[in-house]
């Protein structure tokens, strides 16, 4: 059996290289499964936790139209979490199992959701910047080697690009509004800019798993490549809106055509990833509270379903 291993792995790599999707029933190297599980779980949790900062603004949305858009958006995020937890289940990790790891703090989610949403423009920034970053990250993932993940990504990316445009539109409206609105937009940009750039993860030099993930087709571009893509696409939009990128070092490199940015404060990133961000505690508490408050409802649902199933069986026997 051991003799088969190298050839199984070779066959697997061939499957990847020939762009033939890996499906749940296929053999896969344990490390591939493990990497993928971690990645999908983190992605699912990010959608689920990511609902929180925006959800708090649904009840405060300044027009019914915006309220409706935001409500639908947060709903989409719940839907994304559903797809992703389902994709995770195809790898043998149940939703509750994954979820409990989130609740006890063992599992990670995107660090950006540990920043507070402090004004209405933050809702726009989350759509425009955060979802913009997500698209840059995820469009390649819709070509991921793992079938269920790739298919989930296709649906998710379609919706994210919608959110991205809506976020931009929200900010545009504010920048065209009163001086206070403009100031709110700038304030929000100042707070969201750097955390968004960190969404792409540590610099390639410090990203240990990247190489193998790329070989396996789980990751298709490096962190720095994706970050640069996002910057190049977003800076002109910031300028178009008449806002100021909060980076005194930012400049366009005429030769390469890329925007060069100042140094990213990776220490802050690490602090925040390690639970020391402004809202880590609140986010996990909110998730735990919803879970605990809902336990009697889940139990009731299960008990009712059991009784109904029993009745059905009984009925069948009697008839």
């Amino acid at each position: 059996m051991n003799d088969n291993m190298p050839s199984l792995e070779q066959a697997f790599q061939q499957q990847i290289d020939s762009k033939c999707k890996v499906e749940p029933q296929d053999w896969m190297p344990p490390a591939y499964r493990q990497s993928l599980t971690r990645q999908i779980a983190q992605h699912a949790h990010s959608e689920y936790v990511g609902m929180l900062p925006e959800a708090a603004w649904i009840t405060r949305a300044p027009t019914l139209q915006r309220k409706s858009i935001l409500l639908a958006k947060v709903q989409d995020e719940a839907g994304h979490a559903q797809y992703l937890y389902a994709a995770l289940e195809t790898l043998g990790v149940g939703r509750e199992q994954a979820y409990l790891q989130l609740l006890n703090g063992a599992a990670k989610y995107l660090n950006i959701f540990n920043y507070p949403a402090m004004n209405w423009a933050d809702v726009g920034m989350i759509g425009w910047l955060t979802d913009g970053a997500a698209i840059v990250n995820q469009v390649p993932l819709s070509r991921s080697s793992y079938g269920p993940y790739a298919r989930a990504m296709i649906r998710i990316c379609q919706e994210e690009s919608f959110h991205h445009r809506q976020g931009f539109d929200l900010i545009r409206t504010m920048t065209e509004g009163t001086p206070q609105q403009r100031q709110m937009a700038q304030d929000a940009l100042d707070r969201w800019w750097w955390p968004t750039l960190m969404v792409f993860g540590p610099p390639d030099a410090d990203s240990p798993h990247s190489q193998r993930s790329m070989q396996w087709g789980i990751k298709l571009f490096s962190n720095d490549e994706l970050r640069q893509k996002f910057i190049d696409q977003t800076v002109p939009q910031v300028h178009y809106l008449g806002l100021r990128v909060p980076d005194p070092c930012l400049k366009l490199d005429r030769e390469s055509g890329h925007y060069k940015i100042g140094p990213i404060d990776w220490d802050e990133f690490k602090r925040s990833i390690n639970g020391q961000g402004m809202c880590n505690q609140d986010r996990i508490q909110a998730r735990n509270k919803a879970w605990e408050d809902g336990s009697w409802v889940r139990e009731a649902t299960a008990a009712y379903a059991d009784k109904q199933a029993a009745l059905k069986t009984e009925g069948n026997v009697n008839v």
Partner: protein
Amino acid sequence: MNAVAESNEQLSQYLLRMGDNCLILSQRLCGWTGHGPTLEDDLALSNVALDLLGQARLWLDYASSLHPTKRSEDALAYWRDAHEFRNLLLLEQPNGNFADTQVRQFFFDSWHFLVLTALSNSTDEKVAAISTKALKEVDYHVRRSSHWMLRLGGGTELSRSKLILALEQHWNYVGELFEMDELEQEMHACGIGCDLGALHAEWLAYVNDVLGKVELALPSRTPFQSGGKRGKHGEHLLSMLMEMQYLQRVHPGAQW
């Protein structure tokens, strides 16, 4: 006021009642978004919130078109004070626990369904059209909240006891749903509105039927709370509006 203006004013008041019901309940339900017992429940509650918000906009938009100054839906939603809202008191009650929310929903959905069924035959084409459209959504709402009565009532002892308490507490607000005041009578007489009193028996039969399946019954006392349709609201509406209207009011004239 000439006859057209007066009848427009009456219709507009009637539309506000329909619209405010949807708006206020939707706003309440938004409080669950991100905090439901499961992702699926979260989505389901948000769905209902979104449906009701859409319906609220249709009603308020129509109401505002009848207003001499053509106020927008947002002017109606954001610039009226509590006493100008016309929603049923039931709908401004706080979310409470999941049983409270579902009982509020069940009482309302089952009533809403009957009202919209009647109004889809309204002589006012727009009222009929909005009602017909809304009815498809509310058909789903009422199934869903009815099902929760079964699940909570027939689930565990704990869920049953919470459901019973929720039925008790929300029952007080049900009377208002079937009250026919002068405006309702006027609207019914001219074929635009419906006879709420006439819906009571059917509503009662439906609600009793659902609750009966898990051997529960409605409280026997007469529900006594009333006033929302005439603008007499409680403190809960006030804090809800303070949050809802904050941005608009702090930035008058701003575009969002």
